[in-house]
């Protein structure tokens, strides 16, 4: 039992980093998702092509490769310093999931019933008003469940930051395991339980979002 409490206190040291990385990458990735999602729908062909290129590159390569690239390779190229390991990790996760979620933003906006767009035009709304008052409120509802799913994916992805020297749950667990080899099963089971407990509210949030997603959306 004393082993359990010891491991527990070791893992608690890392929970701060795990949650901070998750929140930072989540906020940043939603931002990226909306910018890229709108970019793909832009009238300007250059913006469309450029965001399309970004999305395909980040969806086509592996997150762990991107993380290592931002951490090891980018500082060497053009001497860009992302100022810290923390930001290298957060930017990698945010760019990766932002690319995935931009597809959801784009798809949801396109799937708002056509009549809604036409009605807004008939009411003499400007492009901006049409988006803000009519299309987005309905599109965002449709995005919610998938956003929730990706939030769980992002939580899982935060475990990768231990590979680039951030001291998250997994990092502390690994250090402890390397000095107490016989306790390895307990350590990893506990780490898994930690992640699961962190995921639980996100799972419930996603289920709630699924209930909400169809409300107040005009269907054809």
């Amino acid at each position, binding site marked *: 039992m004393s082993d359990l409490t010891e491991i527990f206190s070791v893992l608690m040291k890392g929970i701060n980093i795990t949650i901070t990385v998750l929140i930072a990458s989540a906020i940043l990735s939603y931002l990226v998702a909306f910018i890229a999602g709108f970019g793909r729908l832009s009238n300007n062909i250059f913006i469309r092509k450029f965001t399309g290129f970004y999305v395909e590159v980040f969806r*086509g390569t*592996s997150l762990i490769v991107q993380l290592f690239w931002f951490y090891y390779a980018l500082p*060497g190229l053009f001497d860009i310093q992302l100022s810290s390991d923390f930001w290298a990790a957060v930017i990698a996760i945010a760019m990766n999931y932002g690319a995935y979620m931009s597809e959801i933003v784009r798809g949801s906006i396109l799937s708002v019933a056509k009549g809604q767009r036409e009605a807004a035009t008939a009411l003499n709304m400007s492009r901006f008003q049409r988006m803000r008052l009519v299309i987005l409120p309905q599109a965002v509802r449709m995005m919610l469940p998938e956003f929730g799913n990706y939030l769980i994916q992002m*939580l*899982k992805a935060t*475990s*990768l930051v231990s590979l680039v020297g951030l001291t998250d749950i997994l990092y502390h667990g690994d250090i402890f395991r390397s000095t107490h080899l016989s306790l390895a099963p307990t350590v*990893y089971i506990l780490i898994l339980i930690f992640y699961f407990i962190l*995921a*639980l509210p996100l799972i419930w949030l996603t289920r709630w979002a699924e209930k909400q997603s169809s409300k107040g959306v005009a269907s054809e």
Partner: protein
Amino acid sequence: MTWNWNYVVESLPAIFQGMWITLGLTIACYLFAMLFGFVWTFVRRIPWRPLQMAVAFIMEFIRSTPPLVQLFFLYYAWPMVPYVGLTLDPITVAIIGLGVHFSTYIAEIYRSGIESIDKGQWEAATALNLSLKDKWTKIILPQAIPPTIPMLGNYLIIMFKEVPLTSTIGVAGMLHAANNFGSKNFAYLEPLTLVALFFLVMSYPTAVLFRKLEQRMNRRFDKNNPTGKIDKGVVT
């Protein structure tokens, strides 16, 4: 330190060798996930409530915890587990770890395929007094499988992108080769960029292919367009 073409040329052979391991492992993990997905789907159909709830919980647990930790658990901790513990080599760990992790997702796809079938089909099969085997092989599965193919294809690509995780337990795939080269020559930029390019070149065309397939499938299984004829005048 800037881009150095010499490093590209020097690291290319090792990364190319790693590519075969990455690809082979992707296929192996994927097949294992497909098979294990059947196990989940089958067990979940057993009409005994406690079992269903237990299996649902286990699946949720596997799905919402990081695959990296699951790999570490199998690799570092499994040998220490009393009675059933045994030492596994990295490749086996990769196949079991990633296979089981993604089998929970693939089981959901199977389930959605089975649930998409109209209730009337089940009733008709019962009315015709078909045996259990005939009901599944002649009525249910032939209709359930095709719509799931594009989704299953997406998971092949996702699996391909998750396999580099296994470099952390010593599987000598592309990423492992790049990191080795990087630590030897203190040049990470070129090999890592090469690995990213390799991934892009392989996964992008595959993704486009499955997207096209999905569009065709959607037309084929479109309830509003049962003939499956493509109306060239309509831009979808």
